[in-house]
């Protein structure tokens, strides 16, 4: 292709670089600002001197949060949830998507199952009935309350089955001629080639579990079982004192400062920010293939 370097073209290319850089900087700024605040002095933060560079550098807020039991235990709960939730979800997604990717001819009940799942994408019973089911099934205050109700994600199944479907039918036929059963075909033929889709779904599921906050609030009976985001919400939302005594005035002064909140927010972002760039190649591919957003 012949690239014609006219002056106006060059101007466009340069300004394009500048515009995109500015753009990315805008996206990044709030996050850097948080990071800078978390290691700045309280007075500098209050005075508004901190932008993206720490002022009065210190690690006080990090010293404070590593001693904060509630914060630490919520991180543990979140990781536990991540591990169980992602492995269960992936297994269920693969197992459900594979049969559904087969043509009607091969799997006659396919459309019945499809509709069975699709209905749940549109209708849901809402909070109270959902709560009652979780309670009746004995999951209250257990980590499974955060995992089982959301273990089957129909979007992910659709994404996965669309991927399976793009694979040539000969793949399966040749395996079966070799005498491989269905389970083995899935395990040793399909799974190895599904890496991009699996990585995409894994990423979505990780993000979902890491970011979920509402269920922790409702299903957990003690704050020590709160996952991270649920804990964070309790520190971000308003404080409401229902009685005033001289002692409370002193307690009030102990309520986390902005720097501590910034530190907690920043620490909470880290795991996700560390994972996604490595999966970028996969999710871009997986997403385009599935053309469905999770």
């Amino acid at each position, binding site marked *: 292709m012949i690239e014609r370097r006219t002056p106006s073209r060059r101007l466009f290319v340069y300004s394009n670089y500048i515009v995109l850089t500015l753009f990315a900087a805008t996206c990044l700024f709030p996050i850097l600002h948080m990071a800078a605040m978390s290691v700045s002095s309280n007075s500098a933060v209050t005075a508004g001197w901190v932008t993206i560079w720490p002022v009065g550098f210190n690690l006080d807020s990090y010293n404070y949060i590593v001693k904060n*039991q509630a914060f630490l235990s919520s991180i543990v709960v979140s990781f536990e949830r991540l591990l169980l939730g992602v492995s269960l979800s992936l297994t269920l997604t693969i197992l459900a998507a594979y049969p559904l990717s087969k043509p009607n001819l091969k799997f006659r009940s396919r459309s019945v199952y499809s509709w069975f799942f699709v209905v749940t994408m549109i209708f849901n019973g809402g909070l109270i009935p959902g*709560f009652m089911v979780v309670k009746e099934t004995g999951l209250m205050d257990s980590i499974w309350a955060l995992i089982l109700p959301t273990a089957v994600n129909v979007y992910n199944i659709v994404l996965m089955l669309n991927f399976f479907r793009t694979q040539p039918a000969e793949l399966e036929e040749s395996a079966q001629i070799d005498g491989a059963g269905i389970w083995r075909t899935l395990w040793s033929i399909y799974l190895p080639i599904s890496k991009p889709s699996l990585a995409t779904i894994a990423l979505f599921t990780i993000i979902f579990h890491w970011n979920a906050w509402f269920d922790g609030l409702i299903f957990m*009976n003690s*704050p020590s079982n709160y996952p991270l985001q649920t804990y964070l*919400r*309790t520190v971000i939302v*308003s404080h*409401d004192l229902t009685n005033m005594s001289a002692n409370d005035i002193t307690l*009030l002064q102990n309520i986390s400062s902005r720097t501590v909140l910034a530190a907690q927010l920043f620490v909470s972002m880290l795991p996700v920010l560390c994972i996604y760039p490595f999966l970028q190649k996969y999710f871009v591919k997986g997403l385009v293939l599935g053309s469905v957003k999770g």
Partner: protein
Amino acid sequence: MTKKMKTTPAVLIASVLMMSALAACGNDGNDATNASAGAAPSGSASASASSAATDPNAKFDPPVDVKVGVLVNDAIGDTFTEEAWENSVWIQGYRDKLGINVKPEWFVKGADAAKQKVSVSIASGSIPNILAVTKEQLATLSKTDLVWDMKDVFDKYATPLTKEIITEEGNAALDSATFGGKLLAIPGTNSAIDGAPFLWARQDWLDKLNLQVPKTTDELYTVLKAFVEQDPDGNGKKDTIGLLFNKDFLTAGVAEGVGLFNAFDAYPKAWIRDASGKLVYGSAQPEVKDALVYLNKLYKEGLIEKDFGAKDSSKAAEAAASGKAGINIGAMWNGMFPLQQTKDNFPDSNWLAHPIVSKDDQPANPQIKLNVENYYVVSKEYEHPEVLVKLINFWTELNYGKTSQEEFDKYLGAPPAPGHHYAVAKAWKAKKNLQAHLNIKEAFKTGDASKLNAEEKGYYDNIVKFKNGDNANAQYEKVFGETGSFTSMEGYVNNNLFKMDEFYGASTEAMKNRLATIDQNVMEYFTKVIMGADTVDNFDKFVSQLNKLGLEDVTNEVNAWDTAKK
């Protein structure tokens, strides 16, 4: 109250007062009220003598278990652990002294989360044995048969002291928990009078400009004008503001406007009786016009900050901290927060509280409302409803009975004592703080501090420190000391000045759905008039618009409630 913003202390404290509901009769004729701490016979001997069959203080033998929903207050949220709660002296005390094993059914942290947790619990029909609920949640519970009718249990097991405290400001607290003749909850009362507005003024500025403490709205105007124009802080710049004022000026607390409306016999957001004895909504009564005209004048002449509409109460209060303001209308605790900050920054400053001003020579009536912190309910599935009453008895006896200093300090003293947030059920004495002030004043007069209870002694010691030059403790003098805000509070009480909000029931249907919108419209219109974008000439139009928005329905329901109560 699902405010999503991280609010600052002033708002927190203000929300304490917003929580309050209304009290009945403003008359304090109830002879139990001036009983000082310890006057009530509540030792087990006298109690068992009065009712031989049921000793309210008898220990359970064998012990009983009770499961409670634990709402962890934000004030202790950062340091709270479940183990600390379960091992706290409170839980031990309940076990050792009452034979009651208190166990957590669940914990929940933060007001917002608590609301969700309780809501979901009620919806699913399974509440803990004992639970603290809000007025609205109690109203929902009243439609179910999930909770005990506590009437007989309360009569039988509550000690005279407990009864005295819960009925201290009249029967309104109990009435507000009564549905169809059944007492569905024990109201955890709190002080209504502690929410009353005061006029806080910089005495050092008044002295410097040779002015008197304003008593009328006209005098207040003169003072404000002088504070703005005569450079009271002496820095040679015209950078002082007159009146602290914030955008939620109808919310009592700090930098509020309610106290000024009261000066004109206007009682925004309160239900008051009109000439015919019907209950009407204070925000829509013609008296507010005078207040609005007055405020508009202050605004026009720059005596209120031009951008008050963008400032919440804590932001508005910053002007006090930076030594730029000389007048603040707010609650008795303003001397601690935010006005202590002025003292921190300007050691010579001297804020003092006075009664609110009046439009004429008659004293104004500060408006207050019934203040029930929590309604305590007992699940019908639980077979010992009296456990709740005993827990409250334990609290009242500890706080206001003949309790030794060490005993009090163990529970409610300075850390490591856990403090009141760990108590499962509590009811505050309405005049606890006033009583503390009176006792402290007496102690300074006689020089004998030995009669003070532990809490009062704490204040007393801090005031002594202040008098010895420690400005950080000025706040205790400003509230509880001889010149403290409670001096004016005593005047309010003795002259029976309070204007009680007459509605103290649970939100009615229309109230739930419409009142928020109505109040929003009120704020909009009031703000516009103050800023000069609208005038009081449109007041009638404004009122008819409110009625269209549902004020008429709400008023009808409130009056139906009022009639049913009689």
